[in-house]
């Protein structure tokens, strides 16, 4: 009996997060806005957690705004900046490979999609050209959560700053795993990607950025956040980031091994650049393969993976990221290696992959095509 191998994007809850959550359930239940001892204890707990998270983001605690989810962070960043800069028009300049939540928010304004190259990096010439006209906001991810491609943030930020446009950076796939983004005006981070609990989003906003809350103002926006989840997110981030120097190169080597075993399977495409991308994220697409069937075959063999395939429902669009990069969109699997991934787990994956792909292809009768 071998144990399960879990390689999907939402990281398993880190043991340090679990311990901090339980502790905070005892210490952090009171209203941190109150002045009594119980309230001050809760406030101190929240302050420590915010300080920890802010430190890892390269932000100040006062710049943090907490939200219910990463999706909510992206929505709020776009909507609040566009509302504050309305007189500049509603153009939101973004790369074609941003997260769906960001694209949905941009669609509420005037989205300007900037194409990417075949490796997934934004076309900087097109980016600069898009910023030549007035814009309310620019948005570029730190790295793509599907293919792991790291974006040229220093250049993109320089162009946005020169145009006087704030840059929103979606760091939802990167914080804790690689150094924090070098340049941003607004930064969104996702605790669920570093082993923190789901149910909390982190948005950092530089003081120079004007935002306008839509809807009624919340007098103390962060008081309503679950303090246990906040404490858990901070503890997990500390734990994961402290292992980064060791975990990043080890995981990059394991990604190379996976790439080598994919090389033995016919007609598999691996988009992105493995040398410069994230050390723990990769995607691949298998010709003539139904992504959902492949996910199921791998699951039967003890391996849990993610999928960006559209084959799961007739109404679903193919992954806009793979489309923008011009690669095969079906038979797609996304792998995210957790910080404590082992050689044995990758061995299990590599043993399962050829069989699983062959099983789906046999089912669809594609041999010799």
């Amino acid at each position: 009996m071998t144990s399960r191998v879990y390689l999907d994007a939402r990281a398993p809850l880190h043991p340090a997060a679990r311990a901090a959550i339980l502790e905070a359930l005892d210490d952090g239940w009171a209203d941190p806005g109150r002045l009594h001892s119980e309230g001050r204890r809760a406030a101190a707990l929240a302050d420590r957690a915010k300080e920890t998270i802010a430190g890892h983001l390269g932000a100040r605690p006062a710049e943090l705004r907490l939200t219910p989810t990463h999706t909510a962070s992206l929505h709020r960043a776009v909507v609040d900046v566009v509302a504050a800069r309305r007189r500049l028009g509603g153009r939101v300049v973004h790369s074609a490979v941003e997260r769906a939540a960001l694209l949905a928010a941009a669609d509420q304004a005037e989205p300007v999609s900037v194409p990417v190259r075949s490796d997934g990096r934004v076309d900087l010439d097109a980016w600069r050209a898009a910023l030549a006209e007035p814009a309310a906001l620019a948005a570029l991810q730190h790295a793509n959560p599907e293919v792991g491609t790291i974006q040229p943030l220093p250049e993109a930020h320089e162009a946005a700053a020169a145009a006087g446009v704030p840059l929103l950076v979606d760091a939802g796939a990167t914080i804790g795993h690689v150094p924090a983004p070098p340049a941003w005006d607004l930064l969104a981070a996702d605790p669920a990607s570093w082993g923190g609990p789901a149910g909390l989003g982190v948005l950092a906003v530089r003081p120079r950025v004007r935002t306008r809350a839509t809807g009624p103002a919340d007098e103390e926006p962060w008081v309503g956040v679950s303090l246990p989840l906040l404490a858990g997110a901070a503890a997990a981030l500390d734990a994961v980031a402290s292992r980064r120097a060791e975990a990043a190169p080890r995981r990059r080597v394991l990604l190379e091994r996976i790439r080598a075993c994919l090389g033995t399977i016919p007609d598999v495409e691996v988009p992105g650049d493995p040398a410069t991308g994230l050390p723990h994220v990769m995607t691949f697409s298998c010709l003539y393969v139904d992504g959902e069937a492949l996910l199921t075959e791998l699951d039967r063999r003890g391996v849990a993976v993610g999928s960006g395939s559209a084959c799961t429902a007739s109404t679903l669009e193919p992954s806009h990221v793979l489309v923008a990069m011009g690669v095969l969109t079906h038979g797609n699997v996304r792998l995210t290696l957790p910080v404590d991934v082992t050689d044995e787990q990758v061995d299990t994956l590599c043993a399962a992959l050829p069989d699983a792909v062959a099983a789906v292809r046999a089912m669809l009768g594609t041999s010799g095509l």
Partner: protein
Amino acid sequence: MIVDARGDRCPMPIIRLARAAAGANPGTAVTVLWTDAAARHDIAAWARMRGHRVVGEEVAEPADGHQAWATTVLLGGAGTTTAATLR
């Protein structure tokens, strides 16, 4: 040659296109009708991987109320995109 894959979900349009191509001579034009949104991108990717060429896309008769398209692929000859010929 026409492959009617309207109503098929990915990756079936590509598989049916590949089956039709398998029995055809180089230079044959194969037109595949499709409704699944992934097909546009995956026909292009398949053609690139197999050394064929997409030569056109047109709107086709809708099927069951779904918007449909017709993409035509010109089949390449055996070995036309091998490393040897590229060099």
